[in-house]
């Protein structure tokens, strides 16, 4: 009985309590130095992506701002106007720092917006399946199983081969690939939670199904969802980069990190390695830091490990 009361309180998060769940959560999270470093890195990346245009040398896709005299410079070179290109320039005189920052904006923008929509669709489907069970459950989970039988790359490739390139299309493809993971995760915790007494109590108050699901059941299924959503953002970034690298993802006018790497790839054998290498490093740092944060969240939020 104690456990249930505690579970209910954790979800409600009372502010008056001195040892609030949030404080406990922060203390647990900061126990790992690597995770804190990863979180700091990730927040920095987000800030760079958000505030990028304020401090980059140029808008790399405004042709008027490019200086052809400065094309193909190696990292650290000084341009004709005295500015320093820390990561070099490409064959059109585009500053690679600016290109990476703008690429990061697009990569993260695509990943996060598709992630948000996929969470909404997946969570709704999963919790409905878990709460009602029976035929609804079978129907939804069959679709999920069918989709998870195919690897994400293949599903996305099929969709993009059919739909063509474009930001909206790749977001659609990423949503299609991801929602099933959320549905499966949320369903598995919903199936466990709906048997508990507080759900029975809510039902006895003759609350509507919608209210029971979204006000009582959902808050208690949210921990694994947060972990999954974090890690899925990283895999969405990776998948989008892969698809763009293959030339089926974003159009050339919206150069994400993957597209930058792909564009630089043709110059790699001629020695201008920086065109591919630094966008690749940015991609790597993004993916690894998000995963480390997600891993620590999993450890902290997993009730089995907490005891």
């Amino acid at each position: 009985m104690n456990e249930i009361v505690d579970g209910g309180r954790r979800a409600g998060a009372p502010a008056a309590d001195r040892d609030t769940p949030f404080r406990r959560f922060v203390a647990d999270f900061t126990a790992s130095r690597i995770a804190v470093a990863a979180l700091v890195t990730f927040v920095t990346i987000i800030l760079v992506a958000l505030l990028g245009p304020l401090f980059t040398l140029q808008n790399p896709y405004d042709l008027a701002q490019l200086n052809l005299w400065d094309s193909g410079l190696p990292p650290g070179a000084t341009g004709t106007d005295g500015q320093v290109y820390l990561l070099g320039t490409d064959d059109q005189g585009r500053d690679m720092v600016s290109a990476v920052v703008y690429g990061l904006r697009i990569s993260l923008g695509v990943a996060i917006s598709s992630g948000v929509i996929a969470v909404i669709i997946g969570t709704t489907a999963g919790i409905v399946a878990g709460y009602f069970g029976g035929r609804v459950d079978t129907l939804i989970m069959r679709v999920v199983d069918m989709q998870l039988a195919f690897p994400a790359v293949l599903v996305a490739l099929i969709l993009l081969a059919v739909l063509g390139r474009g930001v909206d299309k790749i977001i659609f493809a990423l949503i299609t690939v991801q929602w099933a993971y959320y549905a499966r995760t949320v369903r598995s915790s919903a199936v466990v939670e709906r048997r508990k007494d507080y759900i029975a109590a809510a039902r006895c108050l003759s609350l509507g199904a919608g209210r029971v699901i979204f006000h009582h059941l959902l808050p208690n299924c949210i921990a694994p969802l947060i972990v999954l959503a974090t890690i899925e953002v990283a895999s969405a970034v990776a998948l989008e980069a892969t698809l763009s690298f293959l030339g089926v993802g974003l159009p050339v006018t919206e150069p994400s990190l993957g597209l930058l790497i792909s564009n630089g790839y043709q110059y790699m054998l001629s020695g201008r390695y920086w065109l591919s290498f630094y966008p690749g490093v940015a991609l790597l740092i993004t993916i690894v830091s998000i995963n480390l944060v997600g891993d620590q969240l999993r450890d902290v939020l997993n009730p089995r490990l907490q005891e």
Partner: protein
Amino acid sequence: MSLVVFVGVYAIGNPITVLIDPRAPQEAIQRAIHDLGLDRPLYEQYFFFLKNALAGHLGNSFVFNEPALWVIMQRFPATLELTLTAMVIASVTGLPLGLIAGYWSDKPVSRVIMTGSILGFILPSFWVGLMLIIVFSIELGYLPATGRGATVAIFGVETSLLTLDGLRHILLPAINLSLFPMALIIRLTRAGVREHLQLDYVKYARAKGLTNRRILFTHVLKNIMIPVITVMGLLFGLIIAFAVVTESVFAWPGMGKLIIDSITLLDRPVIVAYLLLTVGLFIVINLVVDILYSILDPRVRLSEETR
């Protein structure tokens, strides 16, 4: 499914604009459109396609002017040998590493292996491929970066595996492709070893005075092989899909490279044939693995019945 793919592929663009020089005389363009069957209404094209597909004809490639299925099957041996080599590398290195990580699960060596396997999961494989090329082909110059090298024909099938040059060419792409299945095999083996070392039969074997090596290799290994082999079957389908990425990075002339080229050139019959073939392959692999799993592991059948 076939309708979705067909209509979708129809919608992505007009192959005429890609295939025919716009400066060609009008009557030549008209003739080409007529020869390719593109002047007929969509539903007529679909039924024509369906009728032929059921008879095994998936249409001629617009680019190669050969049956699409034949174009794909010509590339199939290259993909098959790449995926098989990758599978061998993954199991030969993954199993021992998993055993080590499971047996000494508290030692630092286990943490190193697990960190490595996590990297194998989260890093986009095209990025790893690029790094392999930069390090081994450009910087060190040990191995060639692109192509298949010299091939020899056995039973009419070209293979790179029997020439030294071919082996040098296959090494990098195969390693690249093997990283994901390797990571999965390591995790699975480790989890299996850790679980089985707690079980009674291991205690009995210890009581009998068997050496650790004998317990691990004869008794534990046999038991954990069931899930590992099953997953390897699933992985095989997975890395055929992943081969799309690896083949594009290393310019390996297999099916995956073909589909990417076909998407760029809007070679509809090849895209449709590839998608139908891969989806079919996946359904067959999943079915076979499911059946094999329930035959190999009686517990799966039990849990199905009790549910």
